[in-house]
């Protein structure tokens, strides 16, 4: 199993540009999450999904959108990028229930200039 994969690894955007961060998991997990981690800080939940077709907002959803059309994929869309969105973005997945560990992808390092 590849686990959780994310693309791209790095990206530089100009203010106002848009992009999609890709996340795929091959563990047939129901739950998937998007977090952002600012330099030297903790993890903030952006959006999460408890299954295909079901998504919900986390702590910091403004400026982002998600979709979950399949169990495997959970892309994160940035519209009109702003410098405040410069961060490392982690996707994670878990089987479901409160007693299962989260598996994290390697992250996407995004810089908005």
């Amino acid at each position, binding site marked *: 199993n590849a686990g959780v994969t994310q693309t791209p690894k790095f990206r530089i955007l100009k203010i106002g540009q848009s992009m999609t961060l890709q996340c795929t998991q091959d563990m047939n997990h129901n739950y998937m*999450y998007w977090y952002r981690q600012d330099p030297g800080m903790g993890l903030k*939940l952006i959006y999460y999904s*408890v299954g295909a077709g079901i998504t*919900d907002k986390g702590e910091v959803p403004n400026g982002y959108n998600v979709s979950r059309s399949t169990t495997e994929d959970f892309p994160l869309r940035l519209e009109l990028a702003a410098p405040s969105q410069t961060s490392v973005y982690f996707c994670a997945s878990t089987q479901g229930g409160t007693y299962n560990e989260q598996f994290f992808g390697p992250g996407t390092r995004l810089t908005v200039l």
Partner: protein
Amino acid sequence: GQQVMQIPQYQHVQEGEDFTTYCNSSTTLSNIQWYKQRPGGHPVFLIQLVKSGEVKKQKRLTFQFGEAKKNSSLHITATQTTDVGTYFCAGPSATGAGTYKYIFGTGTRLKVLA
């Protein structure tokens, strides 16, 4: 909303010294998880505690869940340079209809000086 705080935020220790990080939740938790993130890496699951007062050990790491299930600690004995990284605790937060999300603590960044 539910909050999970960790102290200290940073800790520098000499190699061989002990290290402890504390995690405090504003609400009672059904369970708590601990993760480690190496510099430049992603969080990796270490362990989960479920029972009140539970203590678990992994080699030099000792994890404890408080009696009231609102706090937890991670203690590392005789730190090594391989222990460098940020340690996060995380607790579940119900979102309704049997679903949940995890709230991560603020993290403790450990530096070990050789």
